[in-house]
């Protein structure tokens, strides 16, 4: 099977290993380090060779011939969740923990099919507030709860 799962994975990892091998040449070495048996580049170079070799083995001698079946998977929903997670990372500081996390959870629940607005709020907000109290009071881990503009100016 030309486009088996093993072969596609092998090609992707081959690209990764080749890039890794090329980047390993950017590791700076001081002049006296170049002649020692083991320097900062040794391990990466060995790994790059091993990785390229193993990728080629996987591509040339794949263990299974199964083809990837793309139908029946919710790719768009998965992509939306990736965007949501990335967005959460960008908003957690400016919006504060409680607002950004509540939004993250509510959008997540809604994406997976929860349509009742009251349920969205009643599940997400108390949980987030309880978690924040547990972290700050119970485990002494402080995280800014509110957006910057709502903080009292000191």
């Amino acid at each position, binding site marked *: 099977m030309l486009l088996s*799962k*093993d072969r*596609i*994975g*092998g090609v992707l*990892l081959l690209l990764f*290993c080749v890039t*890794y091998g090329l*980047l*390993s040449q950017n590791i*700076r*070495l*001081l002049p006296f*380090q170049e002649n*020692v*048996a*083991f320097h*900062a580049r040794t*391990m*990466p170079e060995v*790994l*790059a060779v*091993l*990785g390229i070799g*193993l*990728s080629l*083995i*996987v591509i040339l*001698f794949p*263990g*299974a011939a199964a083809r990837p079946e793309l139908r*029946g*998977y*919710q*790719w768009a*929903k*998965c992509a939306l*969740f*990736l965007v949501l*997670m*990335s967005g*959460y*990372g*960008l908003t*957690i*500081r400016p919006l504060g923990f409680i607002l950004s*996390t509540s939004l*993250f*959870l509510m959008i*997540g*629940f809604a*994406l*997976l*099919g*929860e349509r009742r607005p009251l349920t969205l709020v009643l*599940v997400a907000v108390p949980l987030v507030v309880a978690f924040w109290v547990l*972290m700050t009071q119970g*485990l002494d*881990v402080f*995280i800014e709860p509110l957006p910057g503009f709502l903080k009292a100016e000191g």
Partner: protein
Amino acid sequence: MLEGILIGLSTALTVGNLFFVLMGCLVGTFIGMLPGLGPMSAIALMIPIAASLDPSAGIILMAAVYYGAIFGGSTSSILINAPGVASTVATSCDGFPMAKQGKAGKALAIAAYSSFSGGVIAALFLLIAAPFLAGVSLAFQSTDYFALMVLGLIAVSAFAGKGDMAKALLMTVVGLMLSTVGTDQTQGVPRFTLGMIDLIDGISFLLLVMATFALSEALMAILKPKDDAERLKEKEASENLGSMAIGKHEVKEMAPVIGRSSILGFLIGVLPGAGATIASFLAYGTEQRLAGPKKGAEFGKGSVRGLSAPETANNAAATGSFVPLLTLGIPGSGTTAIMLGALIGYGIQPGPRLYIDQPEVFWSVIVSMWIGNIVLLILNLPLIPYIARVLAIPSRFLLPLILFFSLIGVYFVSFNTFDIQLMVIFAVAAVVLRFLDFPMAPMILGFILGGMMEENLRRALLINNDSWSFLWERPLTLSILLIAAVCLVLPFATAQIKRLKDSVYGRTREGD
């Protein structure tokens, strides 16, 4: 040894640590029960909390989560035929048919008693084996450690199964590659940081584990959601468990199985790479053969022996896998690799010196195994009807929560939003690779061992005046490397021999 046990008891039996064992078992069971989330994800989710505790308490918590998650995995295998982890697949062979016969409660009780016995007996073996092996391994040098790590990495890949060894080895190399990102420890040179300050300290192991296990598990569940019929089945199973009492006849049947499977499970667990999955299947197969034709035919249809054997063996193997971790500092499985990462995070280097330098950590882990198993039996078993309700929580609420706990777990350690973005990138890569059937556990093992491997190799070369001759001149190093070579070649060789046999046999048949 008695002194050690007393140290362990005095550490593990404090109110705080007992609380962590209780909580760990409960939370582990809860997480392990969620289909798809196994012990590795459960431990990973606990690391941010464990990091805020002292080392003994943190390790006790993680060990308790480990047994709890294995127990929880068995529960979902029995009730809904959805093993959370590979090591409980064998459990579902007879556990699920029993549940279908209306004996779910009995099946859960048999699984709990077997797990308990397997865990307790194996902890006894660990008590004897670990100090002995720690004493022996004091003679190990950097060269031997390097060879041991090579053996550990190859062994994990060697057990990956037919056709999957090259993929597992490749993933191990990818893990080793990721471990080289950041500032080189000896020469202080930045490597693969792509000019980003956030990568100067390297990739956090917690971040990688969370992204490749917890996040990608949840994303895979989003990618392929369950249909309504399946959800209904889970809801019904969590509500109707039946009686949990087991009779004399069943105890009589279980006892010899537990004895044999405990020994087998422990021995398999000690081997690096073999782990609980192989132990459970091997115990299942062994008991089926020993049961004779009549009893053997009951296997797969709800046999007590068929359920007891893998449950005993997987718990015994989970305990056995602590032997190489505690005595050599080499994790034998993905789960113990995560624990090793956590220990290193505490500034503790597991290995023979742990037994001498930090006996309270060493012994409290062993003692906590007994306490954890007792807790699982007397607390979790009666609570199962309630904990099983977790299976009825709609996934539309559960999955975003898992994503949230994974992201915030990493963020609360570093307080760096770059880590969240990096997690998303790793999660995408992990989902793609899992979709293509590439294993993740060897990558984590490679990542954890990468730094140590490089350090030991560098030290070995320094001691030997930059000469590589230590690889063949030191008998212990050479022996370990030869075993690693055998592990590497054996699967290929057996496959070739089988192919040769088949062709000869086929030709003879044709000749007839």
